[in-house]
């Protein structure tokens, strides 16, 4: 599985404990602010043009009054065998040696083929030039590029924070360890339901949690080998 690293670089992975998720959507807001995600307005959002690199999917079980709601944060699963990668004719999406599914905005011509072949529907297209309702444009993160219209975008696992964490570890002359890299969603999670780290390091928290008997991956039968692991007690 994903744990068999193909390179010596860290293999980034996320663990999400569904038993702790309250569906508060703080992660969605944090992601939006961190990654310069444009706002599209209510009309466009109703047409299915809103961009949310991470979203809370809610599933309802049972009939009133015995209803159970399940929340599931869904973001790019950074599949080891990503279906979006081979179909891109211009290598705009490819796999890095850190196990990330990278999106190169400057290479993207906008065929949207990757989005059609993504079983998790986590890829987003810029239908128009990006805009921010005032004063949001003053809060843009200088470390993240703004995407033009016509290109695909999606969760990067906060690549800018990964780079920073790796550089810090390098400066201190050591390997990366837990806490070096904290993506915006993980940092914000109100119930500490999300974990992030190097799954190739058997001492890391994500590595240990991924071996939990509560662990599973989304649409695992497809063989995409996702890098996001969900914990769920099952019922």
């Amino acid at each position: 599985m994903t744990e068999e690293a193909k390179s010596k670089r860290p293999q980034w992975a996320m663990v999400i404990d569904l038993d702790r998720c309250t569906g508060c959507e703080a992660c969605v807001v944090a992601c939006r602010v961190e990654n310069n995600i444009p706002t599209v307005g209510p009309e466009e959002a109703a047409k299915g043009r809103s961009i949310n690199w991470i979203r809370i999917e809610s599933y309802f079980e049972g009939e009133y009054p015995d209803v159970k709601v399940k929340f599931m944060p869904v973001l790019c699963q950074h599949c080891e065998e990503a279906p979006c990668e081979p179909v891109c004719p211009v290598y705009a999406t490819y796999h890095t040696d850190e196990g990330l599914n990278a999106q190169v905005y400057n290479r993207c011509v906008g065929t949207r083929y990757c989005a059609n072949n993504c079983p998790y529907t986590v890829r987003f297209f810029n239908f128009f030039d990006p805009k921010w309702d005032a004063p949001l444009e003053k809060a843009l993160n200088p470390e993240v590029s703004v995407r033009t219209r016509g290109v695909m975008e999606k969760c990067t696992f906060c690549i800018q924070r990964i780079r920073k964490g790796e550089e810090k570890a390098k400066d201190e002359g050591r390997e990366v360890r837990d806490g070096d890299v904290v993506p915006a969603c993980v940092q914000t999670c109100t119930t500490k339901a999300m974990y992030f780290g190097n799954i190739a390091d058997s001492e890391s928290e994500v590595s240990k949690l991924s071996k939990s008997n509560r662990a599973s991956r989304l649409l695992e039968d497809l063989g995409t080998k996702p890098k996001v692991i969900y914990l769920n007690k099952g019922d």
Partner: protein
Amino acid sequence: MSERRSTDTKINSDLLKPVHHPGWGWYATVVVSALVMLAAAGALGYQFRNGLGVWGINRPVFWALDITNFVFWIGISHAGTLISAILRVTGAEWRRPVTRCAEAITVFALMIGAMFPIIHLGRPWFFYWMVPYPNERGLWPNFRSPLAWDFFAINTYLLGSIIYLYLPLIPDLALLKSKSRGLLRKFYGALSLGWSGTELQWDRLERAVRVMAVVIIPVAVSVHTIVSWDFAMTIRPMWHSTMFGPYFVAGAIFSGIAALILAMAIIRRVFHLEQYLRPIHFNNLGLLLLTMSLIWFYFTFGEYLTAWYGNEPEEMAVFNSKISGSYAPLFWASVICCFIIPAPLLAIKRLRTIKGTMIASALIVVGMWLERFLIIVPTLTHPKLTFNWGTYAPTWVEVALTAGTFGYFVLLYAIFTRLFPIIAIWEYKEGLSIEAPQKDTSPEITPRLEGATS
């Protein structure tokens, strides 16, 4: 001999009449189709200026009418090569007045179909990144992507079908040169490559046409197979199907023959070519159309039966939306247009008239367009994670572009008939000269055949 010469002159004047005196019908067609095309060009400009958001596409329906039109027109383009090439290779004599009509459809339909993968891009001005050339990005195109296969397949097919249209045109171009003056004479002269009709030239031409007819068949089959693989290579329910290749090729030939019959019927009326495009041509093409209709139904039935029997929830979501859900009206309209009405219309000899085949063809063209739409959109509205199910409705821009493709096609076709004879004059004459001596030689052939079998 003088009788021969007078038929010759009559054929020349009949078949060159559209070129020299097209008539008011031609002008009306050009004006109307040009207006439709210009409206679409305006819509396209609006789209380029504002972004793809002016279309109805959304998440999760990232492809819709753009790719529908792409698949549909590439399908129509299969009229020419396959019909003309297969008929040529098998030596079907009745093909002679049909071939050029068909070959011209191929080239124009292909030009229109191939436009869509470019204009549907988020950043269409970078479409040339699909070309493998040494560049500052230090990147080849991704040869694992079916879209890259598309790029090569369609360009090969376009080049091949232009050559295949052009080669048999050369003797007629020389004839046109001899009948024109001034600038037009220079134009036809340059295109006819100095054709003077020597024995050696005829020999080479016929050999070249024979080779191209054989070569173009696998190219045509591969093109629509690759178009189908754009879908079949994905892991989407009702797309990931092993039989999409032959299913798409059959559908392409099917809609192609229908388009050809329509084009022939219109040309026959507008240019008064009743003596050349005779009921037998419509009858024979009608029989081919019937065969394809049956094959189409067989594939469709097989495709849907296996999905239903497998009963996987993800497949069934798409299946139900077509059979009984929101896409059911379109789905059943497509089945009625492609099979339920055309099949009896084409099977009953009394109904297989010019009018009958025309009605069947018009329905099939509509039905096959719907079929392409129904392959693409219902799958996209039903992603695996049900939370993300979506809907799709086209905007005026997409509707205008779709209408524009028809205007553009008619315009290109009309201009072609004005510049070149739409029925191959030399091929038609050759057919007459073969027919005549054949009557004398037939008794000789019979004993020879008997000798071979005994």
